[in-house]
Structure formats: C-alpha cells, structure tokens
C-alpha cells in the first residue's frame, strides 16, 4: 500500500500514542483539520493493509516483573529452518521469532527467538525446551540477556 501526505500527517500525529480522551480520533482530526470519519477510515485502511499492525498497548516487561529477557539464537540447518522456526514461534513464551542471515565466522546463528520470564532460571528452562524441539537440526546455540534498555521509542517518521 502506498501512503499519501494525509496518511503521513496522521502517522506523525499518532506515532507517539493516542490521546487519552473519550473521542481520540475526533481530537486527532481537530488537530489536523480533518474530520473524524476520515481519520477513522484512513486508520482502518492502514490497519487492513498492514501498515498498522495493531492499535494496542505495549506493556513494559520490566515493570511487570518480566525482568529476564533473553534473545535465544540458534544455528539450525537451513533445510529444516523454516519448519522448525514455525514451531518455535508457536511456543507461548516466545515473543518474536525470525530467520536472519548468519555473519560468519563470528555469528553462526540463523534463528532468533525472544524469551521473557520473571527470572533467568525461568528463561533458561524455556531455552532447554526449544533445544529439545530443534533436535538433530541444531548445531550450536547461545543466549544474550538484555542488561539495559538504552532506547525504546518505536518508529519515528522524519520530515518528508
């Protein structure tokens, strides 16, 4: 989908969040000189096309006690990676799961799965479950715990 200049204004007006008022779309419309129906129609169209993944809250894992956050990384045989990746992504404790290119020789891993838990022991136990699932297709693996959030803002559109 291509977005037009009005969509861009709408994205810029909402990318840091929706106003917490009873009629948020009307408030955005007022600020942009549009009408509420058009704002809603454009947001719906962007959601239908995937430009908006969803309108939702992003919980702060850390503040909710999910302080252990491990990026598990796996070197999985290429021929098995798509099928096994789908199984890993379906695990209820995996929040993101991707295939990515290796950066040899330093980085042999092609499957990335984020695992969250209240303790590192909990995350480590989940890692063992993933390892069992990958079986013989697994060559090596590692886990990188996050030790600090350095920045978290989401997408920001520049001028344009």
């Amino acid at each position, binding site marked *: *989908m*291509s977005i037009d200049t009005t969509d861009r204004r709408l994205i810029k007006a*909402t*990318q840091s969040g*929706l106003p*917490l008022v*009873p*009629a*948020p779309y009307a408030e955005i419309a007022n600020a942009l000189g549009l009408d509420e129906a058009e704002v809603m129609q454009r*947001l719906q169209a962007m*959601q239908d*096309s*995937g*430009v*908006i993944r*969803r*309108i*939702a*809250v*992003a*919980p*702060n*894992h850390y*503040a*909710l*006690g999910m302080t252990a956050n491990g*990026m598990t990384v796996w070197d999985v045989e290429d021929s098995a990676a*798509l099928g096994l*990746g*789908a199984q890993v*992504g*379906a695990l209820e*404790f*995996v*929040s*993101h*799961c*991707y*295939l*990515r*290119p290796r*950066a040899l020789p*330093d*980085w042999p891993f092609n499957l*990335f799965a984020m695992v969250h838990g209240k303790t590192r022991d909990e995350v480590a136990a989940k890692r063992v479950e993933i390892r069992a699932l990958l079986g013989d297709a697994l060559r090596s693996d*590692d886990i*990188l*715990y*996050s*030790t600090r*959030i*350095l*920045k*978290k*803002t*989401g*997408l*920001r*559109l*520049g001028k344009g």
Partner: protein
Amino acid sequence: MTALDDTDRRILNRLQEGFPITPHPFADVAAELGLEEDDLITRLARLKDTRLITRFGPFYDAAAMGGAFCLCAMQVPEGDFDRITDLVNAHPEVAHNYERDHALNMWFVLATETKAGIGEVAKRIEAETGLTVLLFPKEHEFFIGFRVAA
C-alpha cells in the same frame, strides 16, 4: 514495582489484543470489561505515567510503507559504552536499543522509510563511532501468539 490491581491486569491483557476504531473506543472497551469509560481512561493514564506501559496507540510497520526494519549489532568497548550509546541513539531511525551480555554488546533496531535507508544510517553510525555495524535483516518472520500475561 508499582502495584497492579485485577482491573489493571484485565485492561493490560485486553488492550494488547487491539483497540477499536470507533467514535468512542474507550467506552466500547470499558463496556466489554464492565468498567466506566472515565475509569478506563484514568487507569490508562496512570499506567502510562508510572511506565507500566511504554506506548498506547498504533504500531506502524515501516516495511509495509515501503521502508524497512533491521536488527543491528555492534561490539562496543566497555569504557566507551556511554559515549557510543549517545552517538547511536541520536539517530531518529534507531527505534530501540538494548545492551546485551555478549561480545556483541549493543543491539539496536533501525526503522527507515526506504530500504536503502538502512545501509545509509548504518554507514553513518560506522563513520561516527569507528565501529563495525553488523546487519541482521529478517529473512522470515514467524507468526507469534505471545502476549504478556499481566
């Protein structure tokens, strides 16, 4: 840790699923949860103020707009970590950035409006920091059903 009551937990769980595009969306969600509209709005404002939620609103996908996301990693010398963090974070294209316990100790996501933008920003960061930026673009994203149980 800030105390959450059962109503806060229900709100957090419900609003991870999606928010309606209707004239009075808070009233609609409040009705589903058996709450008053103003109670829902007040609680959300408090959850934001106390940083229990980091964002509330549309999640835009740069790739669907013709842009791109890319996970990047750098090996930053420990003694220079804060200075390099400032240089990297100064780029508006850096959407998030985490310190991790690995030789590759800085992991950030670039979100740019064009596919070419990823390489351009990565090159600028390399020039500013004198460090190599490894790029890990996604080749495939697997469907996820994960939600944080608040």
